[in-house]
């Protein structure tokens, strides 16, 4: 069996960018040294956002389903760490299993309802479900309600200890690598072909005999599961679970990451997450240093960046590069 699902053109720009980005992430904790804790935690956050965006991209980029509610699965994943932890269940495997099972159930229900519609209605229904779950979390008074839930210690994954920030970083990096690899395979598989074909021409896919709804629902659930894993990791990074993880703004941010990176590419979400989160981090400092009076207006520059990417690079930062890997 071949390791990669497609031939790789090692000299193509996309391949080079992908390899450089992955190597940079692989060596980052060594490069920043022992006082680089801030950078390691920041990079972990980038990886976790990338992971959630990879999940969303599976249905958004390849299935054409614009979900404005995927943050709810991130939040659900986070609470699957926070709530058991409050009851002194510290096993990371238990947290992960709980997150995956609950997400599979929720996503099946939400998907089955939302996929009856398309376009704007699909966006609104996914948003509505996310808002409902948001307020369910707010109403959990014994688990912090509005204020969120502080998590005393990180999940216990047995042999693989994530107490240190560097080990958590590598767990997140491993999760991203795995998600990239699996989604790459899935996108090129017969399932992925049908999913992409249904996006490109639903009418034709149906006329060929593909039960499109069934494929879309499975893709939707898989996509939600990846976001739930991101939630489990996020709760471990911040040692905090809060309704704000399920806010619609985060769902929106995930969409921006996917589009920024390049819709319909496997690797795009990681590039998109790096671009967005790094800019969000450095622009305020940059603006403060040059125009101290306008430091709260840094978002204007971020807006301009997104504007120009949308205008000039129609296929996103990574998607606009030529060939090579997906």
């Amino acid at each position, binding site marked *: 069996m071949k390791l990669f*699902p*497609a031939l790789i053109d090692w000299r193509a720009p996309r391949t080079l960018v992908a390899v450089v980005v992955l190597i940079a992430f692989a060596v980052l904790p060594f490069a920043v040294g022992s006082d680089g804790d801030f950078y390691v935690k920041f990079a972990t956050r980038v990886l976790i956002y990338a992971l959630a965006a990879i999940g969303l991209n599976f249905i958004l980029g390849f299935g054409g389903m614009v979900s404005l509610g995927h943050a709810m699965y991130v939040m659900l994943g986070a609470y699957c760490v926070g709530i058991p932890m409050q009851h002194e269940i510290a096993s990371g495997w238990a947290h992960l299993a709980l997150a995956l099972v609950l997400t599979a159930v929720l996503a099946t229900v939400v998907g089955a309802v939302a996929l009856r519609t398309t376009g704007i209605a699909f966006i609104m229904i996914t948003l509505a479900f996310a808002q409902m779950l948001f307020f369910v979390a707010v109403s959990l008074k014994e688990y912090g309600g509005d204020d969120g839930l502080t998590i005393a210690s990180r999940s216990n994954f047995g042999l693989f200890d994530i107490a240190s920030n560097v080990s958590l970083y590598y767990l997140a990096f491993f999760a991203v690598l795995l998600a990239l690899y699996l989604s790459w395979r899935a996108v090129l598989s017969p399932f992925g072909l049908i999913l992409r074909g249904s996006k490109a*021409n639903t009418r034709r896919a149906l*006329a060929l*005999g593909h039960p499109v709804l069934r*494929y879309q629902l*499975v893709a939707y659930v898989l996509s939600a599961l990846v976001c739930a894993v991101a939630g489990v990791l996020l709760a471990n990074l911040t040692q905090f679970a809060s309704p704000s993880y399920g806010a619609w703004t985060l769902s929106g941010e995930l969409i921006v990451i996917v589009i920024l990176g390049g819709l319909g590419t496997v690797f795009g979400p990681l590039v998109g997450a790096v671009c967005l989160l790094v800019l969000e981090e450095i622009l305020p400092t940059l603006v403060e240093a040059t125009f101290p009076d306008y430091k709260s207006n840094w978002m204007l520059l971020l807006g301009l960046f997104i504007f120009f990417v949308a205008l000039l690079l129609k296929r996103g930062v990574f998607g606009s590069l030529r060939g090579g890997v997906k």
Partner: protein
Amino acid sequence: MSALVTTSLVKRFGGVQATDNVSLTVESGQLHAIIGPNGAGKSTLIGQLAGEIKPDAGSIELFGNNVTAQSVVARANMGLARTYQITQLAKEFTALDNVLLAANAKASSNFRFWASAHADTKAVDQSLAALAKVGLLDAKDRTVGELGHGEQRQLEIAMALATEPKVLLLDEPLAGMSQGESAAMIALLKSLKGRYPMLLVEHDMDAVFQLADCVSVLVYGRIIATGAPDEIRSNADVRAAYLGDEVNA
């Protein structure tokens, strides 16, 4: 057994009777053509046969099974394949991937996530054979956007063939083609004749009279005549309603 039978099919859109008591039969191995002026209800009829449009009354039988209430997907999986008057392709896909999408349609659910779709040699061979059949083998790696109009029409046929159909519905396969492309398409349809029962909706009279075993004339949603090409050519009603000078010329 007849491949496709409709009995008293009726479809109204508001006050318009788009399909008016249409009963027709496509016999196994036959090419049955439907001709009619614009607005005669040809596309509405195909839509009902494929399952995209629900008839108001009447029934549709596919190989003796009543499929009137069946979905598009169910009918496709029973072996009904169609092509579209306006090409319906996956635009960013290569020609091969379009056909591969069709070749993967035979299983009612296809949950294979791991191996590449291109590694499925059976489906790929079947797709290449379909492309070869329509003369697009050299264009297999070009995306739909890079194909000419005529090639896209050929790809439509290749996709239908790759599903290994039992009956073909062809909705104006010659629409918008140049003379050379038309000739190639007619030759292709001739080569498929006898292998699949076909229902051909077409404007091009030359093509219809060359290809069809049986011709039905649809005017204002109603079939005014059905018969062998020669009978239709000489039928007075048909000439009055539709053919006009074209036959005499």
